[in-house]
């Protein structure tokens, strides 16, 4: 294949990775930014989204688009509810202590993963895409559904940005992120904000998973890669920075797509990890992060 089409394919693949990664990492970034909780179980919320998408689509039947749309709405809601319960039962009782919550979320990771293994099983199960349109280019074919993931993800990112910057809820969240004690002094129920943010973070991961599952299948171990990449993204982008998260996700996604296509997937992972090391050495707060007060 010639260089031009090859690069085009690499870019498309990279953008799909970026789109899903941006949503997943945004959830992790929000939780860290507002609550200062490093949520190691984030990848499992992603996996739960995919597994629930399979359960919902196979329960509904009929035209694949019907089941998919239902999954896109219901799966994140269920995952959000589970996250809320986990937040109430575990994180709140630990008083959001940074060290304790890391250990607690590691525990949650294993609990969720093993429950999925017990009730869903070890198989990888497919979910039908809502539409299957193959875009025919002169050099290769490409899945139309994959392109729609990029669009859907962009829309969701814009929506999240609007909520954060233009609504009262967003204002409260930003205020809590800036200084939770002062916010509480102003009569904001910080505890409830924490619960909401934790659920929202999990829901973003679940939405990303529902979008990706028609092209990658639901599997109980699928949460590991997104978790690792999300951490890479938010470290590079700056913890808690929405803009940084999106920029870093595009950067990592594209470099992953292009490097793994022209060289090897292993090299792409090496470069991403090296990038994290460089950022930590030269700009510990991340590309767009603000230095800690």
């Amino acid at each position, binding site marked *: 294949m010639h260089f031009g089409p090859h690069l085009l394919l690499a870019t498309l693949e990279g953008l799909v990775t970026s789109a899903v990664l941006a949503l997943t990492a945004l959830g992790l970034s929000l939780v860290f930014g507002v609550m200062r909780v490093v949520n190691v179980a984030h990848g499992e919320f992603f996996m739960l989204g995919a597994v629930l998408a399979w359960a919902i689509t196979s329960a509904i039947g009929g035209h694949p688009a019907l089941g998919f749309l239902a999954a896109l709405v219901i799966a994140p809601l269920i995952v959000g509810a589970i996250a809320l319960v986990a937040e109430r039962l575990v994180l709140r009782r630990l008083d959001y202590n940074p060290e304790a919550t890391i250990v607690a979320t590691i525990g949650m990771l294993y609990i969720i993963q093993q429950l999925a293994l017990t009730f869903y099983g*070890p198989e990888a199960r497919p979910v039908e895409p809502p539409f299957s349109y193959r875009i025919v280019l002169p050099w290769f074919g490409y899945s139309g559904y994959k392109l729609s993931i990029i669009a859907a993800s962009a829309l969701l990112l814009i929506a999240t940005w609007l909520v954060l910057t233009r609504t009262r809820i967003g204002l409260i969240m930003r205020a809590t992120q800036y200084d939770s004690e002062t916010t509480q002094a102003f009569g904001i129920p910080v505890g409830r904000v924490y619960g909401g943010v934790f659920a929202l973070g999990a829901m973003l991961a679940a939405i990303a998973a529902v979008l990706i599952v028609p092209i990658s299948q639901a599997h109980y171990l699928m949460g590991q890669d997104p978790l690792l990449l999300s951490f890479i993204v938010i470290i590079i982008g700056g913890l808690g920075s929405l803009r940084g998260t999106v920029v870093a996700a595009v950067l990592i996604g594209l470099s992953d797509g292009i490097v793994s296509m022209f060289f090897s997937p292993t090299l792409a992972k090496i470069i991403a990890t090296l990038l994290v090391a460089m950022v930590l050495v030269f700009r510990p707060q991340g590309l767009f992060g603000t230095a800690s007060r």
Partner: protein
Amino acid sequence: MTDKNGFFDLSKTGFTRRAALKGLAAGAGLAMAPGFVRYSQAQSSAPIKIGFQSHRTGIGAAYGRWYEKTTAAAIKAINAAGGINGRQVEVIIEDDGTDPGRGAEVVGKFATQHKTDIVFGTLFSHVVIGSAPAAGENKMPYFVVSEGHHVASTKLNRYVFQPGITDVKSQIQSMAPWIAANAGKKVTQIFPDFAFGYDHRDYLPPALKAQGADVIAQIAIPPTESSFTKYFPQIPAETEVIYHVMVGPAVLTFVKELGEFYGSNRPQLFGFIDSLEAVDINSPGLEFLDGSHFWEGSPRYAQPDDTEAQKAYRAAVGIDDNGAAVGDPKDVSTAAHMFGCWETLYVVKKAMEDAGYKGPEDRAKLVEATEALKEFAEGPEHPQGPKTFNGKIHQCFGIQNISKVEGGKLKVVHKTKIEDGLYEPEGDYTTQAL
């Protein structure tokens, strides 16, 4: 253990030789037979214990589940017919997580904790390679159903056998003439980046070369990969045949993305059914496979010329004419491989009977009796077809099926002969000490 009270000190007065012997015998009996209460009268009535190293979780889970079903069916049939040497057979399952490190631990657990008579049933080649040393150290006969060439390469040890399924080197050698003659001469290989894939990487090029065809590109993909489009540009444009063999939970994605990439304007496809094992061939997005060819160890779909033995085997395992679980058409089996469990257990039965096997102390005799086997006739015990067995390399050789996707089914279009797949042995296990 220290003998503080002098129980075993025969010079002590008041302790007769008879009493000491009784004590020793009772102690030995206790040590050798856990569950000693039920079977304390004679070991011969205790069940034969087969440790099943199963891929219950991890990337091999779909295979593990069907290997368990097939094994359960075979054990049921064996026990109904009187067991082995008049003893019932009991299977103890341990999950190895499709992980080589865990696999070795499981073999150790079977040897020291469950004290099974043999270990059996592993599929994934990296788990076999990782577990084989543990089997050797524990002098534990280890019967794998893996398909990889590592057993026959004689690089493992004398306790490892593969008597139920042909190895990859033989499969490739017997099918290469058909590929070169019917599919095309310029072949690009896509294979998983671990032991099993390397068998394909190493043995396909020479086998095709002998038929005047060439491998023009080799693409290795990590078995845990979840997205594949990025590898496809490496397929050279002049490729006439894509030879694909993939494993793991993402196999459906692999084939789907191949279809999206090429559409109907594709090179010929020759795949190992591993790329679609446990996956419905009529899944949406797989239409482009129509007319392509697959290797199958044992056919997934019932064929018009199926023998009575094949029909009985399918009924016993519980798969319908489409190779899916009876009553659940979506639960597609791993039919191309799992017959190996059934056949291996009958080989174990034969070898144990030949050896007059009584218990773990006869494991060396069992190894020698297995090595003495020469051939297995087609029939209820070997429904996939006749096989020969080479005791020096611990490997069996059988027929292979090449099937064409036609109207949403796999139809066998070519069967190889056993002779097509024979090669010069690379070593001799029987020279190793037991």
